[in-house]
Structures are given as structure tokens and as C-alpha cells.
């Protein structure tokens, strides 16, 4: 009986391999000729991902963001959940968590200076919160909305001014 058992496992292995190969062939063939096909190797760089609907790059370089921070010529908005904002955020940044944007946007809107560029940020190379928020703000008329990719980590690493709820600062 164990001989039979071995045969079943070998058969299963062969069939499994066949499944994978057949699926790959069918999948790639279908993908090639369909509308809505995607590239076999996709461009997942930050430049490709953080674009606006009309294809413009929304990323702002770290150095440029820092200059705008130092000259106070931009508004920084933290797209992360409130809890994380309270634990620490870029000094002077406002909190507008993307996940509750509908609740808070109209309060924040009044405080936004539409002549200054807005820089959204969150945490991590792949974090989409800042991107979604920037797109949203653009739709709401704040055309100069940019994304500082991996903003929070980069800010900390560079040792630039931060604030948290325990500090006196809030503006």
C-alpha cells in the first residue's frame, strides 16, 4: 500500500507542476491580447506610482521639501492616522488622516493657504495615504499638492524638527 501511496504523491507532484505550467501559459497568452493588459514586469518605482491623473509626477524631492520647510513656504500635512500624528509629526504639520478625510477636510480647509504648496507625507516607501490625500486635495482645488515619499522616516533620519503632543507647539 505504501508503494501506492508513493505513486499518488508522485502523480500529485506531476499534476501540480502541470497545473502551474498550463496556468502560466494561458495567463500570459490571455494577458498579451486583452484590453487592460499589464506589463509582465511592472514599474513599481516611486516615480511611476506617485502620479496625478494627468500623468504628472507628484513627488517632491526631500531637499526641496526641506528648503520649503526652512523658508516656511509650504504647508505640511500628515496623512497618517491621528494616533501616529500625536506620537510625532513634522513640526508645524497639520493632521488630516486620509482614512477620515471626509470628517476633517472642511475644518482644515479654512486653515489652508492656497497660495502655498501643500506637501503631504506618511511613512514608508509604499505608503499610499499621502498620495491619495494629495490627489484629493488637488481635486479640491489645491493644485500645488505634492507628495514627500517616506516623509516621516526621512525627516527623522535627517534629524529635522519634529513635534508631538507632549510638546507645546501646535500651529
Amino acid at each position, binding site marked *: *500500500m505504501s508503494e*501506492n*501511496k508513493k*505513486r*499518488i*504523491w508522485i*502523480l*500529485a*507532484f*506531476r*499534476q*501540480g*507542476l*502541470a*497545473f*502551474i505550467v*498550463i*496556468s*502560466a501559459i*494561458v*495567463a*500570459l497568452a*490571455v*494577458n498579451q491580447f486583452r484590453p*487592460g*493588459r*499589464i*506589463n*509582465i*514586469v*511592472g514599474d*513599481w*518605482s516611486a516615480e511611476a506610482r506617485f502620479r496625478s491623473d494627468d500623468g504628472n509626477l507628484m513627488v517632491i524631492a526631500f531637499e526641496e521639501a526641506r528648503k520649503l520647510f526652512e523658508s516656511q513656504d509650504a504647508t505640511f500635512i500628515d496623512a*497618517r*492616522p491621528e*494616533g*501616529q500624528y500625536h506620537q510625532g509629526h513634522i513640526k508645524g504639520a497639520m493632521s488630516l488622516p*486620509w*482614512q477620515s478625510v471626509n470628517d476633517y477636510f472642511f475644518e482644515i480647509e479654512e486653515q489652508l493657504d492656497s497660495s502655498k504648496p501643500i506637501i503631504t507625507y*506618511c*511613512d*514608508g516607501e*509604499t*505608503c*499610499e*495615504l499621502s498620495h*491619495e490625500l494629495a490627489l484629493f486635495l488637488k481635486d479640491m482645488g489645491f493644485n500645488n499638492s505634492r507628495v514627500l515619499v517616506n516623509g516621516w522616516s526621512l525627516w527623522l533620519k535627517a534629524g529635522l524638527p519634529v513635534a508631538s503632543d507632549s510638546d507645546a507647539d501646535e500651529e
Partner: protein
Amino acid sequence: MAVEKKHVRLILFHIARFFLGGVFVYASYDKILNPDVFAQAVFNYQILPDNLVNLAAIILPWLELIIGFCLIIGWWIPGAVVIVNGLLLVFISASFFNLARGLDVHCGCFSGGILGTTSTRFAILRDTFFLAVSFFLIYMVFFIEKKSDFQSVEFQNQFTQNFNILKERK
């Protein structure tokens, strides 16, 4: 009454393979229709290297569809059962891994909380249930020893026929 127990086990086996097959066919549908959305989801898991994301997003749904289909119609059951188990183990491991490192796969951000969102927890629970079902399929296909178990059952069915075909081949 020993015969009845084998009946029940066999019926459960068929229910299980129809059920799991149906789940996989259903799950594959959206992913095949919207490969770009699924690719974004695969990317958000941050497990595969960027260059393999699209390849996985293209192939995986078709594997699910074909496996599900074969489970339902009873073709190549041993292979299908192994693949189903493999897929579920991979999905659950991926979810746990991201849960452990606090990565929220919906937004691609580190939420800081290790317990994850409700939808993540639900997904893991659901996949664990599917895994239990697929473990049962493995048990039935690979660990039910005697051919006579099935031959004694009145139901002549696709699985029994396949089982006999497997035995006759070499």
C-alpha cells in the same frame, strides 16, 4: 455501520471539493478581470521583489481558476488538492507575516498596531477555515489506505473512477 461512516466521509469529500473549487473559481474572477488592481494588491504585500509582482498578478488568478474548475469536475484531483493547500498556506503565511510586521496591505503603510484591521483578521480566519477543508481533502486523497474502502460504497463517482485509473496507471 462501518459502511455508513465511509459513506459520510465520501460525501463530505465531494462537498469539500465542490465548495473549495467554487471558492477558488469565484475568487479568481475579479482578479482576472482587473489585473492592475490585483497587481497593486500583490505589491502592497511587499513580499515579492518588484520585478515579479506583475508576473504573479497575471498567473496566480488563472491557477486559481483552473484548480477550482478541476476540483469541481474531479480532474487531476491529487495535483489540484496539493496546489490548493499550497496556495492557502502561502496566502495565510503572507497575511501573518504582514500582521507581525504591522504592514497594512490596504494602504501599504505601517499601522504600528500588530493586531491588524478587522478585515485582515477576518481574511485570516476565513483562509484558515479553507485550509482546514483543504487538509481534509489531503487526508482523503493521500491517507485513505484501502481501495476497498471506496469500492464498498454504492456511489460510483468521479473520484472513485479516478482513483482506479491512478492505480491502473503503472
